[in-house]
């Protein structure tokens, strides 16, 4: 009986998550167009191109699925899967309603982060496997960035966990009932939210920290040699990873499924994640790219100490109120 419930719930969550991921590309193109005083996709699906994601997926599927002759077969084929699966796994942990989550684990916050960083393996496998100088260079860069930005991300998430006294995402959300979202916590909330936001930008390769896939230098980064379905998987993986991180940020900082009653819980979670996604888009389409050494300097000299100090402050604050 338990198995059946989880099966049904996970199919439902995965289904909605994948459609939202598909429509993220549409949202991004529309929002970017607004920033550029353009209109964005218009003709596919008449009023405003709402069929565009379907068209993109179909286009990518019918493309020839090739593999460079001297590529490392196993790594090359495995890479897209390794990128998509960890990203999708994140959705299983996010609590949709009090006590309702596909996988309700006492340490779900840490589990989310652990599985999330597996995607890095996929990117490196793609870079190394496709036997291409540019892809290799970009794979090296992605390892450097992911490793260095993992730490501030975890430290930023420890602060709400400390305040709520538990690693279980559902407890975190329960702790934020009554509008006491963690982002409103006096100093701790804002600082850890900003640190998490910057770490998310680097983790999900969004400009201004998207040095992993910098066209003007590395052509197309790790997915230079991919086309067709494999490229579509990479594309979906990247958006799913971003949405999962936005979902996590919404759950931890903006009170997940909490909200006035006229909308069911999960809808609130989706709305908050999309709001954060548009914020990420706003940042992405405004800033120029930062150089690779500046990205690393930003982390080790600014973000990491800030996150540590913030955690110390939170610990002091938590002990005093306990």
């Amino acid at each position, binding site marked *: 009986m338990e198995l059946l419930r989880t099966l049904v719930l996970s199919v439902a969550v995965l289904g909605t998550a994948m459609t939202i991921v598909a429509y993220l590309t549409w949202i991004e193109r529309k929002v*970017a167009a607004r*920033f*550029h*005083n*353009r209109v964005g996709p218009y003709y596919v699906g008449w009023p405003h191109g709402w069929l565009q994601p379907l068209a993109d997926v179909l286009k990518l599927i019918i493309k020839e699925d090739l593999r460079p002759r001297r590529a490392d077969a196993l790594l090359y084929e495995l890479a897209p899967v390794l990128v998509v699966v960890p990203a999708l796994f994140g959705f299983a942990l996010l609590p949709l309603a009090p006590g309702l989550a596909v996988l309700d684990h006492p340490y779900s916050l840490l589990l989310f982060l652990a599985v999330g960083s597996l995607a890095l393996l996929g990117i490196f496998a793609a870079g190394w496997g496709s036997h291409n*100088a540019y892809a290799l*260079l970009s794979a090296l860069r992605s390892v450097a960035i992911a490793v260095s930005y993992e730490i501030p991300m975890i430290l930023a998430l420890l602060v709400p966990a400390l305040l709520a006294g538990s690693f279980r995402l559902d407890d975190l959300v329960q702790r934020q009932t009554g509008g006491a979202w963690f982002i409103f916590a006096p100093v701790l909330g804002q600082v850890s939210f900003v640190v998490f936001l910057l770490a998310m930008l680097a983790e999900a390769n969004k*400009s*201004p920290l*998207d040095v992993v*896939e*910098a*066209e*003007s*230098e590395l*052509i197309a980064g790790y997915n230079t040699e991919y086309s067709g379905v494999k490229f579509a998987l990479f594309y979906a993986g990247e958006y799913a990873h971003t949405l999962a991180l936005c979902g996590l940020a919404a759950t931890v900082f903006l009170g997940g499924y909490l909200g006035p009653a006229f909308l069911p819980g999960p809808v609130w979670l989706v709305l908050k994640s999309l709001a954060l996604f548009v914020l990420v888009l706003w940042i*992405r*389409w*405004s*800033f*120029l*790219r*930062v*150089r*690779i*050494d*500046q990205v*690393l*300097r*930003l982390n080790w*000299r*600014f973000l990491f100490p800030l996150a540590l100090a913030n955690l110390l402050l939170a610990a002091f604050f938590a002990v005093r109120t306990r």
Partner: protein
Amino acid sequence: MAEAPLQVVERDFGELAMHMGPQHPSTHGVLRLTLRLRGETVVAADPGIGFLHRGVEKLSESLGWEQLAPVYERDDYVAPTFNSLGFCVAAERLGGIQVPRRGAWLRTLTAELTRIASHLVWLGTWGLDLGGALGGGTTLYMYCFREREKILDWLEAHTGTRFHTNVNLIGGARYDLTPELARSARVLMNGIEAAIPELWGMSGDSSILRDRTRGIGVISPELAQAVGVTGPVLRGSGIAFDVRQAAPYDAYPELQFDVPVRREGDAFARFQVRMEEILQSVRLVRQILDGLPRGPIFTRRPLKNPKASKLPAGEAYAAVESARGELGFYLVSDGSWRPYRLKIHAPSFANLQVIPHVAPGLLVADLVALLGSLDPVLGDVDR
């Protein structure tokens, strides 16, 4: 955050030779940079050109004086009016031809508008280099090209075509300015002036661009003079030389404008010089619109058969200040209806020569920023 740079401990595993170009998203045309890299740091860079060589100087020896202006406009295809203007100024100096005041003022009007359009192309594509196609770079590019479209629309109404306007004739201009065009030009200038703070806000104010361009590709005044760089690249290294002031032509003696100069000589200095030049051009266009004299715009015999118009034998050198720098024409005439020999001093050609001197030590990303700050146009380089 611009503290001491990280000390890069380098295990010596030799150098990686790599071609950047001729098809590369950020080489501003068909330029091949043969790079020797150690890790991501450039050890040596050798620019290879000639991919867009159309033999314009050989072609000039088989076309008449009156037929050549539209051909030269295809040289520097980002700021075309300066090429035909340079040729006409040089031919007028060779032949001692007087240009009527209204004709001269109209030529300066289209020249300054083309300078603004060319600087907008430079800023937009530089944004793409620094920001990438899926990021803030595209936004800056879109804003620049939105303003540039307005200028091109005005040029289309004035001359009939958006870009290669062929406005300049030896001895004057071809199209006159109607009152409605004058009004719409003023509205256009107000639009540009309103857009500049926005463009500056997107680029100059953002600390990302400052960190990526300050101290990159520093050209010392001595190197600048020895290599002979020109235009905003020269003025970015502290040398206030502008052909419009040094050897004024057309309407510039009667117009007030100042020449922006920066001392640092790095990519950010060149950025500031070009941005202020846009404002100076707006000021110039407004002065022209206010004080446009009356009278004819062309005084030589009407254009009929090219074989009928001959220029006296002799040599002459004259230059105009194009958006990229000093665009000079060295004419040698044997008195016939065709030039005997014609050498074009292309500003981008001189500016590109500085790369082997300045590139060593930069990261690949900085090389892209340096290249963008030199604003080369490969049609201008290869002629």
